[in-house]
């Protein structure tokens, strides 16, 4: 891309050079001058000039112009309120008008202390009011969802929320109704705003009209301690700021990594902090023996664990969830590989480095020309912010092709690997287009990706390594599979023996503890130990349960789906002993030397596997590591998907975004849990005389589930899609019929 053309404008007497087409707000900022704004937010799309706060005087134009909507032109002379009496009066008047009907709520409003209206009123507004009439009064607050409260009296109608709903999240649930002086923000038919990104409007709203009910009245902004951390609930690792008061986490805000999340957060990451204080959280080790539960102290628990490892005599298997940080995974792996001398592991997903030559930041999606998504599990459920990037890409003019059961190019579930090969071949038209385009990005979202190997084969064939701005992204279903695999590899220098049977199963993380496959392994195992946040039903299969810390309470690193190594910081002290400290003690008992601190473990791990980068160099906004050289890719030959047995329709299970042990323990997010629905294609529904919303029975061998039918026009006939938590034990082939 050629360098943008630079033009010179003068702002308040200061000349500044900016790229052509920059808005005046950014141009003034480049000159070090603030132009106040309310409705202007470049991430929401184009400026609307609705609030009239950014009024500036431009020489040559008789009336005041809004700086946000005016692009800079060469030679423009701009006067802001600092040097222009008219502009100052204009902004003063704007604030006065905004405050006319604004209620005197500051003492009781949650936004007080971090409110742009307060700050700008101080800076640009009048000191006294001339309003002698009654202010308008509306019903307040109105819960537009269980997590967000709307106060219409405070709303200054900047439309940031409605523009977000329309132009960013594209869910169009929040709209402005009525017109003129009666305009109000509302949802249609007063339905709750049910969407994965609704929480962002709380951060966008410049006044206290949209506030989070979870955080309502908990604290004032000056009473917090902040920790700059990273969300550990999905593989994106959005950068967050966790604010806590008196040692309790109160809320999570976005920290805006422009390459990763662009300042957006999904509701799961934003509203999940109450899981730290759920009643079910275990706070001390427990032993289950002969049906009796016994609480142990840490010394006894470690002694018990040591004896269990000793009993197993090398037949130890470690099951990781992919939610652990690299350091915790490394310490666990060191215990198993060096302490128990066993190489048995169940990694959450295969995560190879095949896609490292095609590394690309998520922000590259915004500038891409062609995007191909192999989507078996919806991207929105796996990595929601990637879905926002895709929407942005499409608005920016990229051509988005989805290949999968519900995609533009319909393929059977499990067939994505073959589709990859076909695209790489010469005959595919789409493939030709991809070869010609400059900026191509491939995304894999679903199972059977062999850790990105298939995608790597395609990327190699398309020659994406040479093209700047092109790349490939593999969306895993757990937050840190690559990191966990790296930690396992690095934990020991020589391989030990592979256990034939499972003497001791060490299950780390609630995800693994709730996984039915791991559960079956636990039944086969002689003994099982679980390391979880919540009690759940570990009592039924584990012999020893140890309490774990959450991602909000730990220091460590995680590698996200781009390959970026990001650092988590502790926001609140956990009420239990951190893992690294007791793992180091356990290591001491087993003769494995492990550091007890994060920096120590990271240094050890980094020396072996991360090119010896230091912990302190990780910084607040982690950079993307450089691309490696492409080499030969070992990808298994894709086979045709196996025939489906049990029923005529093939069942696609997908993990919904709002599922999992963390979300289950947050009551406010219960309304976002996936509804008990089955997505069925139009053709199949017609054939069975099922209408949208009907109750149906989904049957497979021996099991039947009652769900509501939802017709998905894009879904391929022959497939149905159900959220994993409603599937129970249905077989891959099901039949759907009316009850």
């Amino acid at each position: 891309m050629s360098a943008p053309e630079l033009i010179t404008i003068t702002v308040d007497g200061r000349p500044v050079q900016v790229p052509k087409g920059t808005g005046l707000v950014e141009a003034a900022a480049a000159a070090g001058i603030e132009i106040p704004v309310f409705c202007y937010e470049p991430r929401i799309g184009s400026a609307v000039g609705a609030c009239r706060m950014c009024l500036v005087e431009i020489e040559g134009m008789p009336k005041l112009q809004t700086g946000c909507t005016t692009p800079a032109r060469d030679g423009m002379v701009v006067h802001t309120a600092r040097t222009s009496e008219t502009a100052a009066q204009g902004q003063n008047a704007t604030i006065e008008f905004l405050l006319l009907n604004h209620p005197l709520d500051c003492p009781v409003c949650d936004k007080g202390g971090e409110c742009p209206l307060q700050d700008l009123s101080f800076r640009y507004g009048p000191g006294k009011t001339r309003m002698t009439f009654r202010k308008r009064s509306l019903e307040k607050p109105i819960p537009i969802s269980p997590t967000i409260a709307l106060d219409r009296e405070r709303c200054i109608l900047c439309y940031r929320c409605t523009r977000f709903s329309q132009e960013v999240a594209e869910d169009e649930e929040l709209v402005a109704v009525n017109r003129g002086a009666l305009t109000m923000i509302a949802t249609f038919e007063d339905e709750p705003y049910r969407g994965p990104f609704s929480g962002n409007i709380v951060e966008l709203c410049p006044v206290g009209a949209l506030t989070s009910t979870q955080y309502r009245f908990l604290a004032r902004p000056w009473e917090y301690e902040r920790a700059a951390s990273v969300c550990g609930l999905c593989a994106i690792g959005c950068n967050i700021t966790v604010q806590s008061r008196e040692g309790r986490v109160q809320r999570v805000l976005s920290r805006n990594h422009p390459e990763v999340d662009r300042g957006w957060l999904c509701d799961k990451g934003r509203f999940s902090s109450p899981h730290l204080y759920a009643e079910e959280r275990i706070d001390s080790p427990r032993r289950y023996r002969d049906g009796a539960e016994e609480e142990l102290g840490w010394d006894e628990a470690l002694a018990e664990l040591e004896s269990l490892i000793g009993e197993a005599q090398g037949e130890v298997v470690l099951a990781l969830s992919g939610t652990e940080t690299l350091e915790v995974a490394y310490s666990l792996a060191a215990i198993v590989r060096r302490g128990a001398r066993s190489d048995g592991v169940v990694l959450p997903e295969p995560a190879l480095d095949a896609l490292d030559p095609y590394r690309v930041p998520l922000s590259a999606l915004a500038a891409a020309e062609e995007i191909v998504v192999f989507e078996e599990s919806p991207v929105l459920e796996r990595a929601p912010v990637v879905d926002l990037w895709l929407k942005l890409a499409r608005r920016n003019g990229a051509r988005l092709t989805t290949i999968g059961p519900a995609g533009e190019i319909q393929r059977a579930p499990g067939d994505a690997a073959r589709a990859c090969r076909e695209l790489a071949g010469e005959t595919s038209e789409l493939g030709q287009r991809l070869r010609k385009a400059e900026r191509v990005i491939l995304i894999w979202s679903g199972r059977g990706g062999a850790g990105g190997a298939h995608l790597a084969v395609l990327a190699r064939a398309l020659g994406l390594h040479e093209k700047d701005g092109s790349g490939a992204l593999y969306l895993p279903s757990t937050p840190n599979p690559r990191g966990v695999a790296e930690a396992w590899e690095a934990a020991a220098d020589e391989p030990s023996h592979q256990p034939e049977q499972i003497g001791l199963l060490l299950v780390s993380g609630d995800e693994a503890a709730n996984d039915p496959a791991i559960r079956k392994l636990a039944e086969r195992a002689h003994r099982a130990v679980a390391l979880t946040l919540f009690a759940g039903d570990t009592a039924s299969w584990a012999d020893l349960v140890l309490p774990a810390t959450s991602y909000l309470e730990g220091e460590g690193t995680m590698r996200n789906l781009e390959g970026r190594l990001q650092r988590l910081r502790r926001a609140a002290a956990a009420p239990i002993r951190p893992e690294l400290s007791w793992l180091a003690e356990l290591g001491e008992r087993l003769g494995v030397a492990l550091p007890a601190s994060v920096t120590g473990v990271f240094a050890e791990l980094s020396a072996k596997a991360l090119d010896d980068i230091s912990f302190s160099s990780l910084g607040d906004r982690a950079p993307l590591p450089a691309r490696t050289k492409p080499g030969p890719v070992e990808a298994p030959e894709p086979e045709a998907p196996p025939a489906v047995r049990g029923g005529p329709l093939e069942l696609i299970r997908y993990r919904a975004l709002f599922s999992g042990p963390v979300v289950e323990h947050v009551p406010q997010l219960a309304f976002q849990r996936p509804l008990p629905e089955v997505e069925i294609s139009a053709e199949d529904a017609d054939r069975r005389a099922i209408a949208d919303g009907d109750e149906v029975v989904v049957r497979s061998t021996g099991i039947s589930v009652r769900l509501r039918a939802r017709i998905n026009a894009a879904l391929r006939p022959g497939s149905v899609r159900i959220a994993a938590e409603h599937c129970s034990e249905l077989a891959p082939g099901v039949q759907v019929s009316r009850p």
Partner: protein
Amino acid sequence: MIGATAFGTIRGFGVTLKQIFRGTVTEQYPEYKRPVYPRFRGRHRLNRHANGLEKCVGCSLCAAACPVDCIRVVAAENTAENRVSAGERYARIYEINLSRCILCGYCELACPFDAITLGNDYEFSEYSRSDLIYTKDMLLAGPIKHTPVADPELYDTPSPNYETDS
């Protein structure tokens, strides 16, 4: 010169001797408690409206204004069953650490609802530091000991009506 010094010294002795006959100016506290001025800044009081609702809405402006950070406010929502204050929210926890408080009165100035005022009570010594952390009910209650106050007619300007009528 020595004579002048000596004479001056002897005159000094006379000055001090004279003081014995002038009597003492000591006020014997606690038998006699000097009346304080009406606006004397003593221990805090949380006020109520005439209808019994608390004035404090838990906005934390007092905590923000406090130069020594001795006020702790945790707010909560007023519900229909439990309506404590006259607004949307009330102070669920309101604590002032009187061992840190410098009785400057900034909290009284900051409060938008005249909920916290500084009364005239200055006798609140305790034997342990934790007893000096006054909780909300202690602050809502009146002073335990009576402090004599000087005549407001002579020593104060009239209170504005927004302070006396709730």
